[in-house]
């Protein structure tokens, strides 16, 4: 169990993805079963790996998910795989793997480049903040998974809509859920992810306020705060519009979800890339904490 490496489940998901792509050309029950088998095996290995990481975190008095940036990204990928398995078990004819598994592979792949050092956001002597931090990270992780699901569902909706309008049918073997179901799932992904992200960002700010004691001051004019604020406002706008516009068409919902969630994703990824490539930039990041003599403590990608 302790020997499980990232490569184990990455390889399983890669094979499952290849089988899903093959299934577009040659649909068959056997290939579906083998694909599900690889996804499930990867999911089990993935779960074991995270449990190991969580145990390691406990030894250092750090909560699970917070052991490192790498773990956090892997948790996000784990949630997406869980969603994928749920969908394909509901309807075995669906081709959702071709949309979700590349995302999973990208998340796991990116985790190679992220720090696997335990985060110093929560030090052993600051156990009082453990609950807040746990709430912050878990709500951000689930909220981010919802955002990713929203993007994928919107893409699937737009593709299915285009196909039906062009009277193409399922010629390529790409079987997607109905527009009605995609629209409903998309709605729920936004309804769940936006409040969670709001909670995550709120608790992040509280943690930053705690952490700023003895560190530099939190500045509302910081570009990262502004960009994150704009992304969040965009999502809140979408949230309110979906709640109070019952007559919105599915296509409108899909486009707006894609734009708002896509913007958030690009922002988060962009900030992480900038933070890792330019120490000067991360120095300004309100989501990255600097402690005297500690070096940068990354929370940026999560807030």
């Amino acid at each position, binding site marked *: 169990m302790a020997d499980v490496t990232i490569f184990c489940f990455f390889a399983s998901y890669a094979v499952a993805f290849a089988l899903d792509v093959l299934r577009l050309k040659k649909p068959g029950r056997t290939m579906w079963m083998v694909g599900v088998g690889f996804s499930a095996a990867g999911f089990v290995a993935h779960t074991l790996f995270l449990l190991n990481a969580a145990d390691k975190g406990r030894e250092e008095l750090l909560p699970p998910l917070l052991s490192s940036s790498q773990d956090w990204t892997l948790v996000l990928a784990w949630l997406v795989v869980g969603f994928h398995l749920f969908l394909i078990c509901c309807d075995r004819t669906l081709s959702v793997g071709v949309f979700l598994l590349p995302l999973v592979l990208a998340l796991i792949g990116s985790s190679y480049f992220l720090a696997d050092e335990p985060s110093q956001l929560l030090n052993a002597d600051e156990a009082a903040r453990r609950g807040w931090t746990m709430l912050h990270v878990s709500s951000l992780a689930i909220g981010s998974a919802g955002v990713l699901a929203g993007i994928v569902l919107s893409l699937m909706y737009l593709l299915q*809509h285009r196909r039906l309008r062009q*009277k193409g*049918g*399922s010629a390529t073997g790409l079987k997607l859920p109905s527009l009605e179901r995609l629209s409903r799932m998309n709605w729920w992904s936004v309804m769940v992810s936006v409040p969670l992200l709001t909670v995550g960002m709120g608790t992040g700010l509280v943690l930053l306020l705690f952490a700023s004691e003895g560190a530099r001051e939190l500045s509302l004019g910081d570009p990262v705060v502004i960009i994150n604020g704009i992304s969040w406002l965009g999502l809140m706008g979408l949230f309110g519009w979906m709640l109070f516009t019952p007559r*919105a068409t*599915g296509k409108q919902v899909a486009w707006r979800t894609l734009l708002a969630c896509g913007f958030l994703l690009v922002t988060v990824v962009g900030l992480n890339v900038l933070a890792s490539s330019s120490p000067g930039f991360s120095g300004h990041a309100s989501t990255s904490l600097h402690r005297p003599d500690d070096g940068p403590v990354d929370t940026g990608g999560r807030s």
Partner: protein
Amino acid sequence: MNLQVIYCNHQTASLDLRERLAFTGAEQLAAAYTQLRDRFPNSETVVLSTCNRVELYTAQDNAAAAPTHDELAGFLSSFHGVPVEEFLGDLLQHSGSEAVGHLFRVCSSIDSMVLGEPQIVSQVKEAYRQAEANEACGPLTNALFQCAIRVSKRVRTETRLAEGRVSIASVAVGEFARGIFDRFDDKTVLVIGAGEMAEETLQYLRDDGVRDVLVVNRNPERARELAAEWGGQGFGIDRLAELLPTADVIVAATGSDQPIVDAEMFAKARDGQRERPVFVLDLGAPRDIAPEVAGLDDNVFLYDIDDLQETCQRNRKSRSHEIERALSIIENESERFMQDVYHRATGPIVKRLREQWSDVSQSEIERLRRKLSHLGDDDFGQVEQTVARIVNKLLHPPLEALRDEARDGTPHGLLDALRRLFHIRD
């Protein structure tokens, strides 16, 4: 003796052209048969007009009297007011055994858009019934159509063509409506028309869970009858505009020669509910729903018969083995039918030859009886039997040769030779 068919179908011609050449309703068919009789008085004719095909079968005893391809195309052109050059390239022709094989393939649904669909058999039967009612058919077409129906039964029994999705409605709902809606038990279905196609679509939708059914028809009584069978409500066509906005699924399957729902009517129905997807299936040919309806908003999903082509082709590919089996049955049956036809052409000559030889032998036996009056009846019985055997043995080689020749077509040369050799007159 000659059989031929000219036709255009979903594989050769667009729906636009097919609907311009279609024969809709009994009145138009009656007018067509009157014109056909005037133009080709020596021919038996049967018109088969469905949403997927327009076919004209002709048959005559004298091959020389058979109408030409151009003459038949000319009839279609003048009857429908469509210039010949607009469809001549899409109009195919078969004659003889190829024409027979074509009808057998049509009737066995191998030529149908949806492989294995059962509706074509009743359409072929109805086409023949109309020809009969208009006194346009005769013994040859009768034999041909009876045989086609028998062959289609054999194909359905001996192959697995009729398994799976075998109706246009089932393909449309399975392929497209299921891509739009997750479930049907909370949807309202509006069926325009109360014919066989409408009924079949309702059956399929009902199996998918549809509960709320509205049927609209020119004849409100028929609409109510059909709706009652499916636990729905029936209305006259005058209520159509009022009912359109309530429907999530609209199926149009009427025999109308004009669109029943135009863009203006549909736009009014969509007012204030453009967020609701609506699945519109137009099974009519000519179309019942104006094609412009599809462009009214993003949530209108309109499909006509030609839009189902791609799906049907995939369906066909997946059952290629069954098609081969069916084609082998059809080839075998076509050959048998043609042999019967050719054999029938030799029948009168054979009958006369037998009668002639029988007459000669009888008169010779009578002469012998007069000369040998001392012989008893038993003895003459023996003589009669011997003479009959001699006649049969002498007749056997020419008749056998005739039968062999008739396998590949009417043996005109041999028939002429027999007429001349044995002085047989028509």
